[in-house]
C-alpha cells in the first residue's frame, strides 16, 4: 500500500476508533509498569497511541525520552524511532537560559550541538584559537565541521552551561549548528564535501533542534584534532579570523573541544542508562522512556545482577575499534554497535526482501519481509564475553502505513556485504541499556554496553 493511501485511511478510521487502555507488565525489574493506549481501526489493525513507562527511574539525575513524530509536529513519513530529550543551555554562571525541546539523543556521538537560532538571544561567548605560526593557523574563533557517515553539521563553538534534568555541565564547549541561510562564518568547501549527501542545517534536515551526544568518549575528536594537519581526512576544527577572512584548519586542545556533557556532571558522570517501554507489534504513535545519568552512582542507576557487560574494542589500531561483534543467522558482523542515533536495525542480509513501496531508509532501503523476520543475535565483546538477544524485522510498508513513530521491528539495509550491524532504537524498547564512558571512574573501567 502506498503511503498516500494511508493518510485517507487514517482519517477514515477516526470514525471507528475503539480505544482500549491496557496496563502491561514490562518486566524490567523494580516493579516498573508501562501503560499502553491503543486505537483500532478494525479488530485486526491496532496501533498504540502512546506507550509510557511509568515509575521508571525518577530523580534529579533523570529526564524523559520521547519518541514522537518530531519537532515540526504532525506526522512526517519516516520520522520514526528518533529519541528526543529537552536540554537547557545557559550563559555560564547565570540564569539566562534557553530550553530546547526535541534534541536528538545520540549514544553514537559526543557533545551537544544545537541550532544556532535556538540560542541566538543568549549571546554565548566563542572559543578562541591562538595563532600557530608553524601550521599557518591564524588567530580567531573556533568553528567545526562535524561529520556523520552521511551529512555533517557546520557552525561555531560556544561556551555554555548545559543543564539536563538537575544535572549541570558548567562552562563547556558546545557547537552551534548554523541554520541561517547565509552561513557565518562561511562554510568551507572542505565541509561541503565532508557532508556526503548534504549539510544538515535546518530542523527539516535534522528532524531535531539539536543533537545530544552522550556516547562512550569524553570529547568529540580527541588526539586526532590536537593539530591542524591530518593527512587523508576531512578538516574538523577551524580558526575563523575576526577579519571575516575564510576559516583555516586548526588544532584544538581537548579542553576546548566539544565535550560530552555527561563527563562534566558533578557525580553522575560515568555513563548513562536508557530505559524504554516495550512496544506492541505494530508500534506506537508516541513512546516515552527515561534517560538516567551515572552508572552505579545512585540507587536508581545500579547495574542489575542479571545484566551482561560487553566491552567494545579499545585498540585504536584494530579495524574493530569501538565495535563489538555480532553474529546473526550465520552471518558475522564484526563491526557492530548499539546506538540510539540509528532509527532502525541497519545490516545486510540479502535473504530479507527489500521490495518496499516506501522510499529508501538509509543505504540500501528498508526491509519488507512478507512475514516478520525473527532471529537470535549473539554479541561477542573484546574479551570474548558472549550473550544473545532476539531481533525482529517487520514489513516497513506495513509499519509506515499505520502512521506510528516508534517501532521495535524496523530494519534497513546497511549495504550488501557490509560487516556492520547498527543495533539501533528498535533494540532499546523493553530494555534497560547502559553505555559507559571511557576514562570515567566506573566499577569496571572502559567503554562498554550492558543490558
Amino acid at each position, binding site marked *: 500500500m502506498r503511503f498516500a493511501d494511508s493518510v485517507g485511511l487514517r482519517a477514515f478510521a477516526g470514525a471507528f476508533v475503539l480505544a482500549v487502555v491496557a496496563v502491561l507488565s514490562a518486566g524490567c525489574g523494580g516493579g516498573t509498569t508501562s501503560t499502553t493506549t491503543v486505537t483500532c481501526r478494525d479488530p485486526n489493525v491496532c496501533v498504540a497511541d502512546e506507550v509510557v513507562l511509568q515509575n521508571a527511574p525518577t530523580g534529579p539525575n533523570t529526564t524523559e525520552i520521547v519518541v514522537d513524530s518530531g519537532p515540526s509536529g504532525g506526522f512526517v513519513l519516516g520520522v*520514526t524511532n528518533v529519541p528526543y530529550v529537552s536540554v537547557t543551555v545557559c550563559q555560564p554562571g547565570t540564569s539566562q537560559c534557553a530550553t530546547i525541546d526535541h534534541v536528538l539523543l545520540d549514544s553514537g556521538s559526543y557533545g551537544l550541538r544545537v541550532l544556532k537560532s535556538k540560542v541566538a538571544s543568549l549571546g554565548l561567548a566563542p572559543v578562541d584559537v591562538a595563532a600557530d605560526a608553524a601550521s599557518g593557523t591564524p588567530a580567531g574563533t573556533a568553528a567545526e565541521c562535524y561529520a556523520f557517515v552521511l551529512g555533517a553539521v557546520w557552525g561555531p563553538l560556544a561556551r555554555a552551561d548545559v543543564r539536563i534534568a538537575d544535572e549541570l555541565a558548567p562552562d563547556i564547549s558546545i557547537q552551534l549548528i548554523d541554520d541561517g541561510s547565509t552561513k557565518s562564518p562561511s562554510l568551507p568547501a572542505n565541509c561541503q564535501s*565532508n557532508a556526503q549527501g548534504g549539510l544538515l542545517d535546518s530542523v527539516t534536515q535534522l528532524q531535531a533542534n539539536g543533537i545530544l551526544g552522550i556516547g562512550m568518549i569524553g570529547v568529540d575528536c580527541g588526539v586526532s584534532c590536537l593539530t591542524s594537519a591530518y*593527512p587523508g581526512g576531512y578538516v574538523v576544527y577551524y580558526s575563523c579570523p575576526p577579519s571575516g577572512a575564510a576559516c583555516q584548519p586548526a588544532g584544538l586542545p581537548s579542553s576546548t573541544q566539544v565535550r560530552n556533557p555527561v563527563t562534566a556532571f558533578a557525580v553522575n558522570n560515568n555513563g548513562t542508562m536508557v530505559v524504554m517501554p516495550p512496544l506492541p507489534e505494530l508500534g506506537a504513535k508516541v513512546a516515552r522512556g527515561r534517560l538516567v545519568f551515572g552508572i552505579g552512582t545512585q540507587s536508581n542507576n545500579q547495574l542489575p545482577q542479571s545484566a551482561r557487560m560487553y566491552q567494545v574494542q579499545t585498540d585504536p589500531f584494530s579495524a574493530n575499534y569501538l565495535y563489538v561483534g555480532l553474529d546473526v543467522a550465520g552471518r558475522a558482523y564484526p563491526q557492530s554497535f548499539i546506538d540510539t542515533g540509528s532509527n532502525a536495525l541497519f545490516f545486510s542480509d540479502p535473504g530479507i526482501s527489500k521490495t518496499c513501496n516506501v522510499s529508501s531508509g538509509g543505504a540500501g532501503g528498508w526491509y519488507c519481509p512478507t512475514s516478520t523476520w525473527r532471529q537470535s543475535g549473539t554479541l561477542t565483546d573484546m574479551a570474548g564475553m558472549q550473550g544473545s538477544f532476539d531481533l525482529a524485522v517487520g514489513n516497513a510498508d506495513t509499519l509506515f502505513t499505520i502512521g506510528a513513530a516508534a517501532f521495535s521491528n524496523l530494519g534497513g539495509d546497511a549495504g550488501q556485504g557490509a560487516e556492520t550491524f547498527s543495533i539501533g532504537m528498535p533494540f532499546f524498547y523493553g530494555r534497560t541499556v547502559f553505555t559507559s564512558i571511557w576514562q570515567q571512574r566506573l566499577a569496571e573501567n572502559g567503554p562498554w554496553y550492558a543490558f
Partner: protein
Amino acid sequence: MRRIVVAVAALLTMAGVAAPAHAALGEPLSSVQSEQAKTRASRSSVAAASGASVQELRLADGSSIRQYVNAQGIVFAVAWSTRIKPDFGQWLGHHAATFDAAVADAARQPGLKRSAMVDQGDLVVQSFGRPGAFNGKAWLKSQLPSSWQTDAIR
C-alpha cells in the same frame, strides 16, 4: 589465496617527512606528485593477495587507509578504518561526486546515518560507522584483478 609480501618500504614516521604519492581510485599510483605529510604518518607497502599490491597510510591515532593497486598500476580499491572521516575527494577522486549524488536522498531521511551504500555502474562504496570509528571500502568493478574477492579488500 596465496599471500605474498610485495615489499616493505621505509616507514616515514617523522613530522615533515615527504610521504610517497597517493592517487585516487581509478588512477595510476605513479601519476601523482609527492605530497607533504605534516603529521606523524607512516606509509608502507604491505602484504597483498596475488595480483595486487597494497599501499597503507597509517596515522598515530590508529587510523589506516589502504589502497589496492592492480598489475596495471591502477588503484582499484580503497579500504579505511579511521578516527576522522577520510577525504573522499582525495581517495575516491571524481567518483566521490557519484557517491554524493547517490546518497543525497538517504542523507535526508530522519535519524543519523551510520551506513551508506552505493552500487552504481563501475563503482561500489560501503561507508559506515560513527564519529571516532569510520570504516568502509570502495572499489571499481572493471579494475578488480580476475579471481579477486571483494571481501579481501579490508
